[in-house]
């Protein structure tokens, strides 16, 4: 029996969002960097996190794959809690390394500084995790990796080392590396902030095309025009607080909160954010 084929995106059986961030709080020493942040991201959504530097958006993103721990609230991905178990009596216990790793394997991350592995060539950068983490056979992984390199336009660089590539090329490899693990969620942390201005476009184009494919993404960015174009929703954070969330049109054209209004004003008058 074959399922009926539809051009519509497959809807999930439950309407639970893929990512649920529920009243999450975190402190670095005495500084509260996340205060009671709640957010949801549905499968297929592209959520952009914007806000001034130090607003906590990168920290929040890093909590989603538990590169950063959080002390209050709970994040779940597809119903599974991230990093901690909450016992019936309400106490928290860090999950075992193995469980945390298993969750991270399903969540791709792309970093501001690319973080490619310099001792491995481009193709090995893509294949190392599927082979080591999932013990996948060599041939299918290589095939998948090559298809992804093709997609980011770098198939001809497969035997180069990261140091031989431009920043924009390295970042495209980093995106392909994350996708080779076939993640259900992709986290992008200021992925163009370290790039020369003329290299930003090639990276953003790749992300736009991924969004077009319905890949679920959470994006921390300072590129407002890009956020507006790529996102299904935009969340504005300041001082560790989620101030306003909505569709890009509402956030950019009709900001309600005063902090967001002044942020947008400074953006429009050309200040570096």
């Amino acid at each position, binding site marked *: 029996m074959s399922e009926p084929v539809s051009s519509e995106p497959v809807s999930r059986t439950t309407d639970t969002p893929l990512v649920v961030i529920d009243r999450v709080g975190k402190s670095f020493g005495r500084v509260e960097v996340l205060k009671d942040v709640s957010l949801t991201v549905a499968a297929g959504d592209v959520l952009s996190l914007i806000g001034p530097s130090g607003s906590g958006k990168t920290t929040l993103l890093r909590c989603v794959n538990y590169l950063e721990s959080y002390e209050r609230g709970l994040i779940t991905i597809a119903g599974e809690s991230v990093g901690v178990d909450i016992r019936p009596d309400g106490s928290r216990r860090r999950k075992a390394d193995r469980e945390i790793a298993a969750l991270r394997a399903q969540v791709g991350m792309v970093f501001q500084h690319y973080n490619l592995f310099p001792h491995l060539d481009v193709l090995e950068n893509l294949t190392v995790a599927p082979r080591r983490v999932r013990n996948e056979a060599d041939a299918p992984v290589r095939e998948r990796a090559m298809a992804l390199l093709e997609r980011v336009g770098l198939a001809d660089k497969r035997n180069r080392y990261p140091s031989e590539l431009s920043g924009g090329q390295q970042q495209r490899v980093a995106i392909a590396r994350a996708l080779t693990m076939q993640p259900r969620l992709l986290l992008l942390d200021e992925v163009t902030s*370290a790039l020369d201005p003329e290299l930003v476009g090639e990276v953003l184009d790749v992300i736009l095309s991924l969004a077009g494919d319905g890949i679920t993404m959470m994006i921390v960015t300072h590129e407002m025009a890009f956020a507006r174009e790529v996102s299904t929703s935009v969340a504005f954070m300041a001082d560790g607080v989620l101030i306003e969330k909505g569709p890009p049109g509402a956030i950019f054209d009709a900001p309600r909160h005063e902090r967001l209004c002044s942020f947008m004003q400074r953006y429009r008058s050309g200040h570096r954010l």
Partner: protein
Amino acid sequence: MDFAFIKTNAPFLLDGATMTVALALGALIGATAGGAVVAALTMSRLAPLRWLGLAFVEVMRNTPILVQIFVLYFGMPTLGLTLSAFASAVLAMSLQNSAYVGEIYRAGLESIHPRQREAALALGMMPGQALRTILLPQALRRVLPPLGNQFIIIIKDTSVASTIAVAELTQAGKLLLDRSAAPYETFTTVALMYLGMSAAVAGLLKVAEFRFPVRVSQ
């Protein structure tokens, strides 16, 4: 220079050189493995293990190798443990060089940017997996030069074993001197033999450096 003398006595010195190679190889293997243990201790998350590692490093590098050999060779029998001269020398050199090599490993690992570990963890690797597949291969490339340095020091330090009559190269030279009274020929030859061994190790490490170049990105 009496070349005939050198030619006649070269086999005797070469026997000594063979023993030197055995000592050095033993100490080299011991230090390479022991260094890993020392680095694991000094980089441990558990404070008591860290202190243990640091104490070991300080004790080992702040006492002379000759004294350490004497402690093992002359001191241990008092505690009911008798070691041969060869074993005493190899063990003492392994222990002391574990401290140095452990610090070299630690420096290498700490020179790798934490972002590398993060990227590996974000891909779903376990911490140990990240260490083995991502961090160590990069760290080892970076420490090849200081490691080569240490290996050469080990080769030269084996001459200390002559003090407890291990029949290694320096000891062979001394014996030959007693028999022949040809100090110039004897010790020039001994020196050249040491130079040959050290140069061989240095050459191998250069090949390794070329074969496994340090690559950085960003």
